[in-house]
Every structure is written in structure tokens, then in C-alpha cells.
């Protein structure tokens, strides 16, 4: 089995931050806030967060805050609940949550809740509801196909609100463990190719419903390690594809859940390092 090329990945993440002048980065700059979350959390898991200038990051984040209290993906862009989440997560990881006017942010989020309990992403109302399907999984909209990413969001939300008893764990666990393919990797739904990001979504869901023993963990570790670019750093969706920060984060996070040595522990529901979560809860 290979090894995790920690230094290479750190180097890769820092280089992405600097590389702002390519078509690919311009086209993605509306989700820079997400990128900050993926990059910084990965660095923290690798124990290298101190490399980053926290003040610079914080000051940029605050410039992305909209008058409504929500955060945008980048300066001058429209706010959205997803970028707000990433902003809060980055501040949590950097231990700078105190810069927030928490009431204001909370007001933005609660303002997005609809009468039926679901949340709209932003003022334009696209709702990301989650509905239980007959196969035990969850889809994006009522009647939507079960999808591992959506399953993670639902199971995570239920976990955080202490409501996991609503989940048929055997049925869901069954569908989830069927996501493991021969190579050891996990896919997101039937007939699809494995992808490193599902190492997170499927894996953390299985952990939350206590069925992770239904997959072959060793094979999954090997799959993730095979997705590394050991020369230039970074992790890709599957072996030999191009790397990106998104998959680098999910690969490292997945390895952390699988208890790969040398990594900080990560919380499967909050998707943040366990010590960050503890810090928040114990400081209350």
C-alpha cells in the first residue's frame, strides 16, 4: 500500500490559493468560499494549519458578508446558505468565531426556513428538501433519486438534531454498502464509477448509522491513496485523473474517518475536526 504524501498535498493547496489567473480559476471564483473551507480544513487535518495567515483569511471572509447577514462565495456576489455554512466552518477551524455577529447570521438562516420546515438556499427559493425513498436513501427533492451526497446531508442533519431514530438503518446501510465496487472505491449511486468524494459521504453516513463494518475499510484506504498525485500533490476523483482541492479535502477527510495514522480526527456529522467541535461545545 502507498502512503499519504502529506507535504505534497500541503504544497498543492497553497499553490491553488495563489493561482488566480487561469480560465479554470476565474470560472470557479464564485465558490471561493467553499474552496477556503476545503483547503483550510484539509490543512488542519494534516496538522499544518499554522502555515496560513489567519488574519488575511478572516478579513477576506468578512468582506463577503452581505447586509442580510449571509455570506457570498466571493466579494460582491450574492449570499447563499451554502457559502454561509463554509464561512462559519472556516471561522470555526481558525478559532475566530468571535468576529461574527452570531445573531445576524442566525437571523439570515432562520429567515430562509419555509413553512414546511425545509430551507431555501437563498431568497430565490430553490429548496433543497430531502425525502426518504423506498430504497432507504434520500433524494434532493420529493421523489428525487437516492444520492449519497444527499443522504449525508439528511443523516447529518438528523444526527445533529438527535433524530437518527427516524432512519431505517439496516435498509439505508444496505444501500450504502452496495456503493463499494470491486476496486474498493465508493460510488454515489448504482451503476456509477467510484469517486473519492463518496469516500466521505457514504462513509460518514455509514458511521453515523453505525454500519461501517459493512464495507471493506482497508480496500477503501487503498483506493483513496491510489487517487493521489504523489508527484505534484493533490487528490483526484479516481486514479490518474486531474486533482482538485475538492477531492483533496474529501480524500483526506475519508482517510481520517478510516483512522489513517497521523491525521486529526474528524466529526462525521459536522465535517470539522473533532477538537474544533469540542472547543465550540465546551466553551459554552
Amino acid at each position: 500500500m502507498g502512503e499519504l504524501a502529506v507535504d505534497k498535498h500541503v504544497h498543492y493547496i497553497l499553490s491553488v490559493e495563489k493561482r488566480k489567473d487561469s480560465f479554470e480559476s476565474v470560472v470557479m471564483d464564485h465558490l471561493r468560499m467553499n474552496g477556503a473551507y476545503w483547503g483550510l480544513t484539509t490543512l488542519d487535518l494534516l496538522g499544518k494549519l499554522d502555515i496560513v495567515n489567519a488574519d488575511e483569511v478572516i478579513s477576506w471572509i468578512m468582506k463577503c458578508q452581505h447586509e442580510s447577514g449571509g455570506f457570498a462565495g466571493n466579494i460582491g456576489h450574492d449570499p447563499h446558505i451554502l457559502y454561509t455554512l463554509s464561512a462559519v466552518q472556516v471561522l470555526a477551524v481558525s478559532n475566530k468565531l468571535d468576529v461574527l455577529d452570531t445573531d445576524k447570521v442566525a437571523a439570515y438562516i432562520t429567515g430562509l426556513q419555509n413553512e414546511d420546515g425545509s430551507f431555501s438556499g437563498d431568497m430565490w427559493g430553490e429548496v433543497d428538501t430531502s425525502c426518504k425513498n423506498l430504497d432507504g436513501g434520500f433524494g434532493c427533492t420529493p421523489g428525487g433519486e437516492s444520492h449519497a451526497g444527499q443522504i449525508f446531508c439528511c443523516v447529518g442533519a438528523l444526527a445533529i438534531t438527535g433524530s437518527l431514530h427516524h432512519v431505517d438503518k439496516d435498509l439505508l446501510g444496505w444501500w450504502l454498502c452496495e456503493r463499494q465496487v470491486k476496486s474498493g472505491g465508493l460510488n454515489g449511486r448504482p451503476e456509477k464509477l467510484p469517486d473519492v468524494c463518496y469516500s466521505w459521504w457514504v462513509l460518514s453516513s455509514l458511521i453515523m448509522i453505525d454500519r461501517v463494518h459493512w464495507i471493506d475499510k482497508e480496500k477503501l484506504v487503498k483506493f483513496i491513496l491510489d487517487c493521489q498525485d504523489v508527484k505534484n500533490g493533490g487528490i483526484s476523483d479516481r486514479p490518474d485523473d486531474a486533482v482538485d482541492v475538492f477531492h483533496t479535502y474529501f480524500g483526506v477527510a475519508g482517510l481520517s474517518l478510516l483512522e489513517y495514522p497521523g491525521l486529526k480526527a474528524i466529526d462525521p456529522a459536522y465535517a470539522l475536526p473533532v477538537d474544533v467541535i469540542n472547543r465550540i461545545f465546551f466553551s459554552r
Partner: protein
Amino acid sequence: MNENSWDENRAMDLLNQFEAILESDPLIDEVGFIHPSQFVTLSNECGESGDSSEDGAFGPKNTKFWNRDHKLGISTEVLLPLCKAAKSAFMDALKQYKNLCSFSDNNHEDENIMFGSLSCLSFESEVMKHGRAVLLLSCDFGTAWNSRKLVVSKKQQLSMLMDELLLSALVLSYSPKSEQAWSHRRWVIKMIAGKHSNLQDIMAKESELVEKIAERSKMNYRAWNHRCWLVSYMTREQMLHELKKSRDWAGLHVADNSCFHYRRRLILGISENSCCKQEGENSSYDVENYQIVKEELDLNEVLIKRYIGREALWLHRRFLSLCMIRHLTTMHDISCHPEQKTSMDNEINIFLDNESCLLNYCSTIQDTEFEDFKAQAMYSAVYFLWLITQIPQFREIDLQVKLRTENLKTILHEACPERSFLWGFPDLNGSF
């Protein structure tokens, strides 16, 4: 040419050229990014001469944009400066527009002089013009889609809403997974549904659009998700029609789980739309619902035997079996006559027998040259196991099942030893 040498003026020129093309050809239905060297090939293929003016081609020697037959090609060389210029122009216009909007919102009617509202109009058209340019290059830029919603919702004109459908369709033609584009379409449709009566027509066209895109972009979650969303606007007749119409397509795309999920959504919708009707109609709906599930099961069996080892087909069968059993159980429970009850019991037995036969048929691993026979055996065994654990009636049917399950254990061990933990399933062990 070095990307860094594109100064602002030249980049603005590019943007103006690009926007001029878009303006002059509103019927563009395809956009692509091409390498500069391919421009020459394209021109040659069209038999272009040195003459520039005729047949709409944008200049013979233009190596940045190519526009002919309502197709638009953009040189990869100019993508970066063009995108930056478009974004910058868009953000400027948006800022001005929003400022003016809040100014006019905050002031009294009579202070809203011509000057103010003309300014607003001109920035509004800038926002739309630059926004369109940006979105064709960077289709997930949410802020740009939002700005269009802002402008269109103020105007409340059907023609503008239809234009939004055109733009998003164009984007989807080369970015079929763009969630922002799909989401924008849903917003537009909701706006149209609220006011205008040609909703049925629009629904039908949406469904066709998805099918067209699904053909080129297999297992496109977002496209099929969009089609599932449409179901909530359909009448029962429309759902039946959709199910029938998409049957052949499904048979030709047996690995497309999303397609089968759509069929499940329709079947669920049809059965849900059978309640709350008058007494007399109930029984005929029940019969129809039963027939739909039966037909789908038959089709599924044909496909399973024809296309060996396809996960999507077996997963579809799980759902269908569950439906069938629920239906038979309901019929059993509501029937008053003992003969009818026995008949229903028989039906359930017959059903189980059939599934058993299917299992036997599929569990023989004829050869291991390819993975398909082994996969088929595994899927059939896991399916049967799932059936037993999920459907309470089966566990009550004693001896027969015991015999079958021993056989099942053997199949599982041979076909997929890594799934042997499934045998430890609590329900199973409890029964035996």
C-alpha cells in the same frame, strides 16, 4: 499570444464582438470552445472563400469567434480575457442597477423623473447583456442568474420568461449538469405557471428537453431530477402517458438508474393520484395500478434476462416487488369474501414462486470470461435476500422459504463472498 498582454481595451473589444454576435444571432443553439488551429479547418469545411459579407459567417479570417448556422465557436485563446471582461462589466452594471433600484424604491412616485427611470432601464439592459455573456462562459455563476431573476420579476413579461428558457437551454446544451441552469428553469416555470395557461405545453416540452439531454449525458442526475420535479405538476393521465412514452427509451438504456428512478416516480405518482376519488372509480383505478406494476415487472424480467448483470434493473425490481406485494396485501385486506382472500394469498404465493424461478434462472454462473454472469448471480441472490427481509409475508411462508434460503446461502457464498455479512441480518436469523 501571452494571456497577460490582453489589456483592458482589447478585452473590452473582445467582449463587444462577442455580444454583437449574440445580438445578431438570437437562434444560436450550440456553443463550443475551440482551439485556434481548428478555425482554419472549420472555414475549409464550410468552403468559405475570402469573401466576408455573405451567409452570416463572422469574417473569414476571424480567429477568435466562429459563427455559422447558429453555432458559435470561441477560441480557447481568448477565453480568459473575455471572461474577465464580461465578469467585470457585469459586476459594474449590476452595482449601478441595484443602486438605482434602491434609490427609486425609496423615493416617492413623483420624484421618479424620466431621467431616473431611463438610467435604470439602460443599466437593466447592460445587466442582461453582460450577464448573458458571462453565463455562456461561466454557467454556474449564481449571482448572474439571480440578477436575471431580479430583472424579469420586475417586468413580469411572458416573452422575457421564454427568453430565459432559451438561454438556459443553450447553456444546458453544452453543460448538461449545470445545477444553476436547471434551477433557473424551475424558477421560470413556476413564474409562468402562476400566470399563464400554456403550462401543459411547457411541461411536455420540458420532458422532451430532458430526454434529449439524457441521451447525450448518461445518468445525468440533475436532468432526471428536473424531470421528476415536473411530475408534481402532472395529471394522472399525463403520468400514464409519460410512463408509456418513455418505456422504449428505458429498454435501450438499462444501466441508467436515473431513468428507472423516473419511472418509479411516475408509478408512485399514479398510485397516489388514485385516492380521494369517488367510490365507484376506486376499484377501476386499483385494477389499472395493478396492471401497470405487473407490466413493468414483466418488462423488467425480459430486460434482466436479456442484459445480464445490470444493477439498475435489479434495484428497479426491488421497488416493483414491494409495490406488487403492497397491492396484493391491500386487496386481501379489503376483500370481504373468503374466496377472494384465499385468491389473494394464492396470488402472493404465485408471485413468490415466480421470483424463485427467476433466482434459479439467474444464479447459474455459465462462464467467468466476463463479469456479467457472476454479477447476475450476485444481484439475483441479494435481491431475493432483500425480498425476504423486507416483505413480512414471505417470512411467514414456512418450509418453502427455508428450502430456498439454504440454496440462497450457497449462491451468495459463490457469487459475492464479501457480502456474507448480509446473512447476519437480524430479521432472517430471527425467523429461522
